């Protein structure tokens, strides 16, 4: 049986591109996996499920809906009971916002919605993966990705595509089919709850795809050249390779106490300085 190739997902991309050591740990033979919890995705998944169900009913040719029916009429407003009260509140707000923005839209649901898509990296060293929340085909033939999240975002800038957007586009567009509609490869709509439900639009262009490809290749090369090279930042708090990382202090506590106890004058070090205040 062939060994399973390491996978680089859209969610891992941002942190992986920022730190060679992190990327090396994700793609290496002894690759690390951070523990994950389903909790951060519960609201987003529930919203996506409701939207997919509503679009599926609306587009069902065997059981056509009465004329004039819109997505707004079919979205389930009652939040799933497995969500907490606070999450249910966010769910209802996000559904309302979705209905308001997309009620009259003519885009149709692509069957790749709610699936995970894969693509081999160019050199065959690893696999790129992306969870597709919602995918639509617009009347002009272009694809529209709708990403759904109820979480806070540290990096998202309104109107700008993210590396994760380009990552998903690279997987969806595929080799040889990078057809550009006015240079637009993928139209991205983000439905978020930050701090109030918001729909944001951006485009992933061919330039973004080329930039991402260059960035990934450079990051992979850097991580292969020096797998211990680190870049410190907010992403360290979610790093699967934090243990042993030279950028994060991890000296033993007793060692620190020993240093404090053996240093001369450790009992009276501050008095002189503080008397002047």
């Amino acid at each position: 049986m062939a060994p399973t190739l390491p996978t680089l997902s859209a969610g891992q991309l941002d942190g992986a591109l920022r730190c060679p050591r992190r990327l090396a740990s994700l793609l290496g033979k002894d690759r690390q996996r951070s523990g994950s919890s389903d909790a951060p995705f519960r609201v987003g998944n529930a919203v996506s499920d409701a939207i997919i169900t509503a679009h599926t009913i609306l587009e069902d040719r065997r059981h056509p809906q009465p004329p004039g029916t819109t997505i707004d009429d079919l979205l389930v407003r009652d939040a799933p009971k497995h969500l907490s009260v606070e999450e249910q509140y966010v769910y209802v707000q996000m559904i309302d916002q979705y209905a308001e923005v997309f009620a009259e839209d003519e885009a149709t649901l692509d069957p790749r919605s709610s699936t995970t898509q894969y693509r081999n990296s160019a050199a065959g060293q690893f696999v790129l993966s992306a969870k597709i929340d919602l995918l639509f085909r617009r009347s002009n033939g272009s694809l529209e990705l709708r990403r759904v999240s109820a979480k806070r975002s540290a990096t998202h800038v309104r109107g700008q595509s993210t590396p994760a957007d380009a990552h998903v586009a690279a997987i969806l567009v595929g080799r040889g089919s990078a057809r550009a509609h006015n240079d637009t490869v993928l139209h991205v709509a983000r439905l978020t709850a930050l701090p109030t439900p918001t729909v944001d639009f951006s485009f992933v262009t061919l330039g973004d795809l080329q930039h991402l490809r260059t960035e990934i290749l450079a990051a992979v090369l850097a991580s292969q050249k020096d797998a211990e090279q680190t870049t410190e930042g907010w992403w360290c708090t979610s790093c699967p390779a934090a243990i042993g990382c030279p950028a994060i202090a991890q000296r033993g506590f007793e060692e620190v106490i020993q240093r404090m106890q053996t240093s001369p004058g450790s009992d009276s070090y501050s008095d002189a300085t503080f008397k002047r205040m």
Partner: protein
Amino acid sequence: MSIERRPVLVPEGHDPTLGDPCQPAPGMLVLSASRIRDYLDCPRRYFLRWIVGLAGEDFDHDGPAAIGSQTHAELRARHLGNMADHDIEGFIDEESPRDPAITRCIQAHAQLCPRGTATYLGGELDVRWLLRSKAVLLTGRIDALWQFPDGTIEVRDYKTGNCPDSLDDDLAAAIYLLLAATALPQQPTSVRVVYESLGGEGGRTVTLHGSPDRLRASYREIVDMADAIRKQRTFPASPNAMVCRSCAFRSTCPHATRP
């Protein structure tokens, strides 16, 4: 297209209004002053904010928090750019900030600043220490870091709002103390935390000295807190008028104490 939901096993004692039982992700547990404060104030708030990742209501755009963050940024810029040639009060005259409250805070700081006797190592610094044996990543943002000639490292925390009279029971100060002792490349021989009270009644300082006993007690507090959070299954609400009043989830939480 059918949507299937996986069945969930609900442990005994789980708060049903929290939905599916959730734990912090297995693996590394991240702790900071604000995370621990949230957990101690109300486990439900900790759950919603740090495990689910909800933002809640955003209600402090121009309030005290904004003045605080602007004061922090202003002081950092002044220390980094002008310590050698200008004293802080002089610099205020040249380029006064717009908000009078910020000006007052900076003037109060000028009376308390250890410039001249210590070296400024930086401001708004993110520091981290990994307790490997416990898989806990302790993080904190230090307002200002000073090094004294005797090797002492001093963490300064600017308080533009309320400031306690003592730091003996202040968990955030305990965290800063631990981070100063363990996370800095300087490897200090002694550490202390100083809160600068810059708002309201004028400038004053409150100090916590990092004796070995104090550090041991702080370490034990953090480890106990990590164990408690890891064991948590229900994340119950702790309704309290003071806590609920400023909670980002106060209008939706079914347990919130409302006026």
